[in-house]
């Protein structure tokens, strides 16, 4: 059996979207069960597809022609499926997280008696559909289209509680900021289609391959040398990535997006929207590997964002805000990994992060239910004894996030930093990116354990914290599953252990190296070395790994030392002015809001005044002049017969004289 059923992976959630939208009111759990069934089906099909790929299968077919062309110059504008190791792995992650989020939502939304649930489950279904379709898209155009739909779904779900003021505003911001990034992405898609005549990721005549041939052949594209043009196109597409993956400077939408329901945050951060950006870079890695400039920019933005966001996470009091900044920071690591040709490392971190971040958000969601929708950590405390399942799973996620041995995050983050270091030893720009990433490790350990200690340890600091609401199975099962995954997922690619023991246990590398040669990890590395000039120095992974681990432990230890005890003190207040800057997020929001509202609105009003005054003024002016003129002329019609007679006589005389002069009578 081949891959005929693969489209169902995405179509099942689409069906659940339609069903929940149309008949959600009348269904058990308001459509939640349908959504669970659909995403569960997707999960099974994804696993099956992954197994097929594992046994040497590969699928790259155009299934639906969106716009067929006639005549010459026809471009292939179509939808198709590309199932290779990368996409099937991502399919499994996405459908798994979506399934668990659906289950968790039964506890978080249904049991809390929310209204509008069919809308909620429809949104989740559409979100899952869009993301899955994006993941297995076989060309950039299809990827863009579902990338945009993912943005729509985030708008719908972030703004779920539309009766309040903040969520619609956050939803608007999320869509608008990512739309700004997608603007560049769209130019990139159009440019790639116009340049190469195809947007296929893989196969004979795929656009990364054509780009490579153009560079090798020294061609000139659109008036630029091929290498420059490829860099321009790559950077344009990168605009969309920066928007969706919340990289500096387009990260500002993500913390606001915490206004959405917490399961939605889990979905957005772990598996769908934010992951989409990084996944896109990995998907078209053969293209980025051609451009040294694009790679360096990716690495630098990634490293910078990792540090930048981690520093802001240190001072947040809202548990979801801490997680939001940690997400930005972790995606920064992935970008850093991709930028230094650490394709496996970045993909690895994408996977482990999906597990532990989903876990952390769902854990935070469990805490928030227990706390009657209180999110400020200073009102929590002492929850560890009341909620053991949540505590231990949350702790597992936190250890993974902080990057502490042997939890999953350690292995993947360590590998990224290792790759960055060995690339950086050959290239100072990458070394700077590495330094920032390394420094961020300390902050990550600090804010993670600050969060854990404040939430779960010490004495309860509010009534709700003393008597938390008990949780149902539908919240505990997802936490348990993800807790296990967050702990063990790192074992699939233990590079330092492999180095130490010589055992061949880097399964993920082998997995990503299987499949067609064009999409294989080793090909990407070779391309990056040849075209992007990213060389890797010889170095054992043990020492860098140890440095990162020590930094993480130092950060975590500092947090534990500062905040332990029954009544922790707000130590970050001692930072003084620096804290104000951090709490205000380096004033990034301010200037972006000023750009979007202050400046643009002012220009718009100016244009409106110009339009009403000058452009329409001329039109109205012409009409006024003719009205005024006619007002004057019509006064001839005085109604007095004598005047008419006089006019006629005068006119006759004038005519006679005129004819006389003209006819030469005089």
């Amino acid at each position, binding site marked *: 059996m081949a891959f005929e059923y693969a489209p169902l992976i995405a179509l099942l959630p689409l069906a659940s979207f339609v069903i929940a939208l149309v008949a959600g009111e009348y269904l058990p759990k308001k459509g939640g069960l349908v959504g669970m069934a659909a995403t569960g089906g997707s999960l099974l099909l994804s696993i099956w597809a992954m197994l097929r790929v594992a046994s040497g299968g590969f699928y790259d077919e155009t299934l639906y022609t969106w716009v067929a062309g006639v005549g010459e110059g026809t471009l292939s504008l179509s939808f198709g499926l590309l199932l290779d190791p990368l996409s099937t792995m991502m399919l499994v992650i996405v459908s798994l997280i979506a399934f668990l989020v659906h289950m968790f939502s039964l506890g978080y939304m249904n049991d809390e008696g929310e209204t509008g649930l069919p809308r909620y489950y429809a949104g989740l279904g559409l979100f899952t559909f869009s993301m899955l379709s994006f993941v297995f898209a076989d060309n950039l155009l299809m990827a863009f289209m579902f990338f945009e739909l993912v943005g729509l779904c985030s708008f719908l779900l972030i703004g779920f509680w539309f009766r309040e003021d903040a969520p619609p505003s956050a939803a608007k911001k999320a869509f608008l900021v990512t739309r700004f990034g997608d603007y560049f992405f769209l130019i990139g898609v159009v440019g790639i289609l116009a340049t190469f005549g195809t947007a296929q990721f893989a196969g004979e005549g795929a656009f990364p391959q054509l780009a490579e041939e153009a560079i090798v052949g020294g061609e000139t594209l659109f008036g630029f040398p091929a290498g420059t043009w490829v860099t321009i196109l790559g950077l344009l597409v990168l605009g969309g990535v920066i928007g969706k993956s919340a990289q500096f400077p387009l990260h500002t939408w993500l913390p606001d997006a915490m206004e959405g329901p917490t399961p939605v945050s889990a979905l957005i951060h772990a598996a769908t929207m934010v992951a989409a950006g990084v996944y896109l870079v990995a998907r078209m890695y053969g293209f980025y590997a051609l451009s040294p400039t694009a790679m360096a920019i990716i690495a630098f933005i990634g490293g910078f964002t990792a540090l930048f966001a981690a520093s802001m996470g240190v001072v947040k009091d809202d548990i979801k805000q801490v997680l939001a900044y940690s997400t930005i920071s972790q995606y920064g690591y992935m970008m850093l990994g991709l930028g230094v040709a650490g394709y496996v490392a970045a993909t690895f971190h994408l996977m482990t992060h999906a597990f532990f971040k989903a876990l952390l958000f769902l854990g935070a969601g469990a805490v928030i239910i227990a706390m009657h929708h209180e999110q400020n950590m200073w009102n929590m405390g002492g929850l560890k004894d009341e909620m053991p399942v949540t505590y231990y799973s949350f702790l597992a996620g936190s250890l993974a996030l902080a990057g502490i041995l042997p939890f999953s995050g350690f292995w993947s983050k360590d590998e990224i930093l290792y790759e960055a270091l060995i690339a950086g030893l050959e290239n100072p720009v990458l070394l700077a990116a590495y330094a920032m990433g390394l420094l961020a490790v300390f902050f990550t350990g600090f804010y993670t354990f600050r969060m854990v200690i404040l939430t779960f340890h010490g004495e309860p600091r509010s009534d709700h914290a003393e008597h938390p609401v008990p949780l149902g199975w539908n919240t505990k099962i997802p936490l348990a599953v993800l807790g296990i995954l967050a702990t063990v997922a790192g074992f699939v690619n233990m590079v330092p252990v492999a180095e130490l023991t010589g055992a061949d246990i880097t399964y993920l590398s082998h997995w990503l190296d299987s499949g067609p040669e064009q999409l294989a990890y080793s090909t990407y590395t070779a391309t990056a070395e040849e075209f992007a000039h990213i060389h890797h120095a010889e170095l054992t992974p043990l020492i860098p790994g140890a440095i990162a681990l020590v930094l993480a432990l130092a950060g975590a230890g500092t947090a534990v030392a500062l905040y332990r005890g029954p009544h922790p003190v707000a130590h970050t207040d001692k930072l003084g002015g620096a804290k104000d800057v951090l709490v205000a997020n380096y004033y990034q929001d301010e200037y972006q809001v000023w750009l979007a509202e202050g400046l643009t609105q002012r220009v718009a009003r100016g244009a409106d005044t110009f339009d009403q005054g000058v452009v329409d003024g001329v039109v109205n002016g012409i009409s006024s002049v003719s009205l005024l003129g006619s007002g004057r002329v*019509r*006064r001839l*019609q*005085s*109604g*007095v*017969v*004598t005047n008419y*007679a*006089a006019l006629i*006589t005068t006119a006759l005389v004038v005519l006679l004289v005129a004819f006389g002069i003209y006819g030469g009578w005089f």
Partner: protein
Amino acid sequence: MLAPTQLLVPVEWYLVLSAGVFCIGLFGVLTRRNALMFLISVELMLNAANINFVAFSLQWGNLTGQTFALFVMALAAAEVAIGIGIILVLYRNFRGIDVTEATTMRW
């Protein structure tokens, strides 16, 4: 058919007379406010034309001009009939026959 004859009075004199009568009529039309005087002035102008018709008819020995003069007289009679009718309506509506008073048809 009359033969062209040497007129006792040259045709120029008729023309001068006609022009004189016409100018008197025109002057009346332009200056008089009384509708009856207006009408009379128009009659004068018509008759000035008649004088021309007849004079030229005699000059060229062609009866068409005389026929036209008769037509103009009939027309003038009809015109007076309508004119008097208008004057009556004017009197009824405006309590007078001053033509400058009836200016309801202006802009």
